[in-house]
């Protein structure tokens, strides 16, 4: 598929470096699926859907900065929806999100709620001003917020909020956020790993499952097509949380 041309209908600023781009098209994505966003003349990067027709982007580098220069009426190229997405299971679910990683979870929670599921959320942010989607999550059910600096909610990392929850109460757990945060949670909650779906990041180049850039050690899972949602029990046996590969394929630390 060639990139589809798509007009940006509206841009909303959610936090200092985070904006939601409202797209003119509803590509009928499932929560957890992503789209390759082509900022013409610059680069093409993966972004999760934060709603049926929105993406929510944190500006971190060249492509995202260029995207932030585009306003309503500008156009981007889209390849997607791609990837497997989350699978909704059970009656009571827990969402655990960190930073911009809350984006696909807000979308997921709204679908779950529509299907009559009971949704609880645990969300971690750096600081009060970085909080996004608070009202979206609160509209779904109990919402616990943590901030690293304690400026809102519980002080500490997202994991600090775990003690408020009994994970056995949930049929399924969904998690998305910075790798270090996800690793922290998953490794602390091993006994729940077979009911935890994690939406993870790797360096995507082709998003077609052929270049190999996104493959996980040790089994070679192609995150771009077999993911980005992967069960936590499989992640526990993988490179996840220990290292990740950069654009040249060499291993590096797991920031962000």
């Amino acid at each position, binding site marked *: *598929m*060639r*990139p589809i*041309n798509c007009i940006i209908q509206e841009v909303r600023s959610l936090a200092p470096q985070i904006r939601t781009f409202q797209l003119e098209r509803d590509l009928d994505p499932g929560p957890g699926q992503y789209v*390759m966003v*082509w900022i*013409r*003349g*610059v*680069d*093409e*990067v993966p972004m999760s859907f934060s709603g049926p027709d929105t993406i929510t982007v944190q500006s971190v580098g060249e*492509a995202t900065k260029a995207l932030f220069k585009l306003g309503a009426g500008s*156009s981007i*190229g889209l*390849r997607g929806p791609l990837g497997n997405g989350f699978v909704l299971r059970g009656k009571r679910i827990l969402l655990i999100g960190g930073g911009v990683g809350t984006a696909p979870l807000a979308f997921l929670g709204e679908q779950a709620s529509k299907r009559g599921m009971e949704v609880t959320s645990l969300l971690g942010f750096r600081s009060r001003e970085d909080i996004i989607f608070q009202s979206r999550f609160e509209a779904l059910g109990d919402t616990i917020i943590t901030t690293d600096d304690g400026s809102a909610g519980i002080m500490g990392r997202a994991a600090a909020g775990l003690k408020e929850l009994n994970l056995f109460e949930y049929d399924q757990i969904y998690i998305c956020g910075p790798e270090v945060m996800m690793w922290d949670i998953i490794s602390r909650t091993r006994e729940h790993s077979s009911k935890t779906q994690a939406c993870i990041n790797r360096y995507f*180049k*082709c*998003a*077609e*499952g*052929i*270049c*190999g*850039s996104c*493959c*996980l*050690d*040790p*089994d*070679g899972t*192609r995150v771009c097509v077999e993911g980005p949602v992967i069960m936590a029990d499989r992640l526990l046996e993988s490179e996840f949380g220990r290292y990740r*590969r*950069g*654009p*040249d*394929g*060499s291993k590096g630390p797991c920031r962000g």
Partner: protein
Amino acid sequence: MSSLTVHAGGLDLQNPVLLAAGILGTTGASLRRAALAGAGGVVTKSLGSVPREGHHGPTVVAVECGLLNAMGLPNPSYRNFQEEIEIARKGGRPVIASIFGSSAREFSQIARGLKADAFELNLSCPHAEKYGSELGRYPEMVESVTGAVKAAADVPVWVKLTPNTADILELGLAAQRGGADAVVAINTLKAMAIDIETGYPILGNRFGGLSGRAIKPVAVRCVYDLAAGLDIPVIGVGGITSWEDTVEMILAGASAVQVGTALQRGYGIFEEITVGLARYLERKSLTLEELRGLAGRRS
């Protein structure tokens, strides 16, 4: 079941269906996975002497009946790849290291520094400045690079050729003169796609290479011409998507084949092809040997 084992290009292969260079070849894990899924051998991503991040995205775009790519030879350098090769080897199949450089010297330096079951010289990538087909279009270059690597390596050396030429046999003959143990044909066709809404070339690199079903008839022709004119084996690649395509390539003269773009459909392709090929041979009561190059004997 008919036997699919074959000795080609200096390697003993369990079956003649290999993973092509640059396809899921960035990590030892994904190479090993291809081997476990039934590939007769696996070729790594092309490795150079320094790390490269490759071109900006989009790096691939699906076009009519194929894929355009301009990855830009991203790789962690051969120095950082030895451990991946060791992991890949755990798949139990030969691991062929694809390597590239801008001179015979650079090629042979890499070949000296890397251990693999064979080397495949990328003299054919159509979208990386100073590399690939920018050298590989000249027969003298093909010969001298091949010769240099042969002198440096103690394993078989395969030379991967570009179809972006008037006469691929000239290039194949040059590789043969240089001492190649096999030629591999073809790499992608120079190609391009433009976004009609904005006029932007879609690939980050503007240009790229066309692979997949679109190029199969071109690949079959190249393999036929090479097999007819060379004494060394030809390994066929380009658009193979089914066991039927594999049979066609072997009829054209291929001793083995490589599969690239069809991996879009997943690793299952290896089993699909090998089972189909074995059944075909059984139905026809033919051996692989008898099948190979049959088209050249029909008239």
